[in-house]
C-alpha cells in the first residue's frame, strides 16, 4: 500500500507542475492570437480611444508576463479572478456550467460504460458469431461518423420526425431530475455511440487475449460454464487495460464535447471556453483549461491506482 501512497504523492506533484505548464502555454497561445478583449468586444465599432480606455481599465496595457504572474498569484491563493468581459466572478460563472458538463458526462458514462463492457464480454464469449460481428460493425460505424453527424441524425429522427425528445437540451439547476434526464437524452445517446466502440473493443480484445492463458484453460478443464470463466476468471485480470480506456473516454466526456454542446445548445463548459477564446477573455480561458487539464490528471491517476489495486503482483511487490 505504501507504494501506492508514494506514487500518488509523486503524481500529484507532477500534476501541479503540469497544470503550471499548461496555464503558461494557454496564456501564451491566447496572447499570440491577434486582437484582445477590447477589440473583440467592440468588433466593427472599435475606435482607438474606446479600445485604449478598456485596456486601461482592465490593466491590459501592462506587459504580458506581469499579468500572467498576477493571475498566477491569485490562483495560488484560490482566487481565479473576474471575467474581463462581464466582470463576474469566474467561480460563479464556471460553477453552473461545470455542473452541467459533469451531469451530461455522468449520464453518458452511466449508460455507455456498463453497456460497452457488457457488449465486450458478450462479444468475447461468442467470438466470431453473428452477434459479435454485428456488434462490431454497429459500434465501429458509430465511431467512424463525426459526432455532429450522429447528433443531427438523432435530432432528425427522434426530435423532428417522431418528436419523442427535444432538439434543444435546455437544462436548469432547479429542474427535477427526470426532466433533466429527458432533456439530455439525445446528447447522452450521441456521446454513448461515440465512446462505446472504443471501450467495447478493448474489453473484447483483452478478454480474448486472456482466454488463451493457462489458468483459463485450467478453468475450462474444470468444467466451468463459459460465462463463469469470463466473469470470474478473465475479467478481473483484464481490469487494468479496460480501466485505462474507460478513463480516457471519461476525460473526453468532460473536456471534448463542445461540438455536441453546440448542436444541442447545451450550456456546458466547452461553449463557455469557446466564447471566451473568441473574445480573448483570458482568465476564463485559463480557468477552463485548468479544469480540463486537472480532469485528465486526476482521472489518469485514478486509472493507475485502480490498475495497481486490481493487480496483486503490483500491489504486493517482492
Amino acid at each position: 500500500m505504501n507504494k501506492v501512497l508514494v506514487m500518488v504523492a509523486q503524481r500529484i506533484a507532477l500534476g501541479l507542475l503540469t497544470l503550471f505548464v499548461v496555464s503558461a502555454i494557454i496564456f501564451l497561445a491566447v496572447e499570440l492570437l491577434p486582437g484582445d478583449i477590447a477589440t473583440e468586444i467592440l468588433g466593427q465599432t472599435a475606435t482607438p480611444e474606446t479600445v485604449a480606455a478598456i485596456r486601461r481599465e482592465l490593466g491590459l496595457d501592462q506587459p504580458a508576463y506581469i499579468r500572467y504572474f498576477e493571475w498566477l498569484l491569485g490562483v495560488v491563493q484560490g482566487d481565479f479572478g473576474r471575467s474581463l468581459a462581464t466582470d463576474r466572478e469566474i467561480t460563479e460563472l464556471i460553477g453552473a456550467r461545470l455542473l452541467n458538463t459533469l451531469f451530461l458526462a455522468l449520464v453518458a458514462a452511466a449508460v455507455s460504460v456498463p453497456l460497452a463492457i457488457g457488449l465486450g464480454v458478450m462479444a468475447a464469449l461468442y467470438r466470431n458469431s453473428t452477434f459479435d460481428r454485428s456488434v462490431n460493425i454497429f459500434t465501429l460505424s458509430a465511431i467512424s461518423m463525426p459526432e455532429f453527424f450522429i447528433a443531427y441524425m438523432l435530432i432528425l429522427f427522434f426530435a423532428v420526425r417522431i418528436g419523442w425528445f427535444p432538439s434543444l437540451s435546455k437544462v436548469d439547476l432547479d429542474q427535477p431530475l427526470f426532466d433533466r434526464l429527458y432533456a439530455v437524452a439525445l446528447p447522452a445517446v450521441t456521446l454513448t455511440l461515440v465512446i462505446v466502440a472504443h471501450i467495447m473493443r478493448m474489453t473484447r480484445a483483452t478478454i480474448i487475449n486472456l482466454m488463451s492463458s493457462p489458468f483459463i484453460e485450467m478453468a475450462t478443464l474444470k468444467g466451468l460454464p463459459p460465462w463463469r470463466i469470463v466473469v470470474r476468471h478473465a475479467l478481473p485480470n483484464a481490469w487494468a487495460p479496460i480501466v485505462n480506456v474507460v478513463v480516457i473516454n471519461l476525460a473526453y466526456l468532460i473536456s471534448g464535447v463542445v461540438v455536441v454542446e453546440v448542436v444541442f445548445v447545451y450550456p456546458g463548459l466547452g461553449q463557455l471556453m469557446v466564447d471566451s477564446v473568441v473574445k480573448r477573455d483570458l482568465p476564463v480561458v485559463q480557468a477552463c483549461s485548468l479544469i480540463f487539464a486537472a480532469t485528465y490528471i486526476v482521472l489518469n491517476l485514478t486509472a493507475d491506482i485502480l490498475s495497481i489495486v486490481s493487480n496483486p503482483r503490483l500491489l504486493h511487490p517482492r
Partner: protein
Amino acid sequence: MAEIDRLKNLLSKGIISRREFMVAAAAAGISASSASLIVPSPAYAAPKRGGHFQLGLGAGSTTDSLDPGRYLDIYMQTVGHSLHNFLTEVTEDGELVGELAESWEASSDATEWTFKLRKGVTFHNGKPLEAEDVVASFNHHRGEDSQSAAKGIVDPIKDIRADGKDTVVFTLEAGNADFSYITSDYHLPIMPSKDGKVDATSGVGCGGYVLKKFDPGVETVVERNPDYWKDDRAWFDQITFVAIKDVAARTNALRTGQIHAMDRADLKTINLLERDPSLNILSVTGSQIYTVPMITTAEPFNDNNVRLALKHAVDRQELVDKILQGYGRVGNDQPIGPSYRYHADLPQREYDPEKAKHYLKKAGMDSLTVNLSASDAAFVGAVDAAVLYKEHAAKAGININVVREPSDGYWENVWMKKPWCMCYWSGRATADWMFSIAYAEDANWNDTDWKHDRFNKLLKEARSELDGNKRAEMYAEMQTIVRDEGGVALPVFADYVNAAAKNVATGKIGNNWDMDGLRVAERWWFKDA
C-alpha cells in the same frame, strides 16, 4: 397585366410562394418595389395579449453584458429593446416618432436640440423618468474614459443639460439636422440615474419588459412590465431569448416547436422551410448591405479606373440569385438604398465585361491580378460570393485570387488592413449617419481610406441644411460621387430573413434593423394567445 393577375391568383391560393411571385413579377418587367405593392398585404388582425414567447437568436455569447455600450450583436440588441425605451423611435414605416421624448425642436442652425420628455413614465424600479436620467444615460457613453461602442456616435455632442425635470438640451459641435434620429440608436437607451451616474449593467429601464433572468450566452427571460406606459405594445406575458448559434439547431428547434421564431434562416435550405406548412418566412428588404471595400490609397485601387473596372466586373443579379437565394436586391455601389428618405434613383450599374476592359485600358493595363480577402465572418456566403466575383471578372480579363481568411479576428486583421476584402454594413436611420461613419474622410470606419473633397464638403453642408429639397439634391450628388468615384463595390442589399411559427403574428415589419427594427418583443404577438 393579365400575367400579374394570374400570378396574384396563384399566390393567393398558395400555389406559389411570395418569393416566387416576386421573381416571376420581375421577369414580367415589374420592379421589385411595385411588385411588393401589388402583393395583397395581409389584413393585420387586432393583437392579443398573453403567452410565453420563445425567440431563438443566432448570436449571443457568454461574454455579453447588459451595458448598452457593449451591445455587440442582434442578441443583446433585441434584449435591450425589450427592457429599454429610447428618446425617439423609428417606426415600422421608417418614420421618426418620439418615444420617451414627447416633442423636440432644433435651433435654426441645428446645433441646439431641445427634447421635452413624456410625463408619468416610471422605470422598472419605480423611479419616475426625469431629465437627469437622460443626461446621465448619454454621459455614460461620453468622455475620455468611455468604453462604449457608441462613443463615435455621441462625440459630436458638446454639452447636455437638464432644464427642469422634463426638458433636456443638447448642444452639438456642429449643426446636425438628423440629430433626433441618432437618439434612436440601440446603444442609447434611457436608464435610471443616481447621483448623476447610471448603473448600466442592472438592466433596469422603462421598456415593456422587466428582466427576470440573465444567463449570458444561454438565455434571457423577461416578464411584461405591468406599468408600461404604452398600452398598444408588448403583448407577450413572458419572453425567453434563447442563444442558438448553430443555424441547424435553430431551425430544428423551430420545427419541433421549442422556439416560436428565429432570426437568420439558412438561405441554403430556405426552400425546405418555405415548404413547411407550420412556418412563415418573414423577410424584409432593408438597408443591410454586403460590400467589397477597396482601400483607395493602396495599389492598384488608387486609380479610379481600376475601381470602376472592378465595379463593372460583377454580375449582381447572380449574387442575389445564388448567394441570397432571391432574398435581396442588386446594389448600385452606394449605400443609400430605397428605404432611405434621401434615396436618389440613379441608373443601375450593370455587369459589363467590355466596359470593365475599357476602364482597365484607361488605367493603362491589359489585364489585372488582385487578391480578394474573404471569410464568412463578413457575412454568410462571403467566400462563395468572392468565388462568383472571380468567375465574373475573369471574362473582363481580371484575375481575382480569392484569399480565404480565418473568421477569428477578421475585423481586427483583415478588414481595413487588406487592400480588398468582403464586408457588411447594417444600414443606418439616415443618409448622413451612414456616410458619416463609413465614407467621410475623418470617419473611424472609412474602410476604403477614401478622401473626396467635394463629397466631404457636401456632407458637412447637408448635415446642417434644414431645407428638405436642397438636402435631397445634395444627397443625390453625394450618392453619384460614391457610386462613380468611391472605393466600395456594393453588389447587393441583403434582406433580413427570419422565420416564425404560424401562430406568431406581426404587423408590418420594420426594416431599419433586423428583427422588426429590433423591436420584436414589443411589436409581435400570438394569434391564439
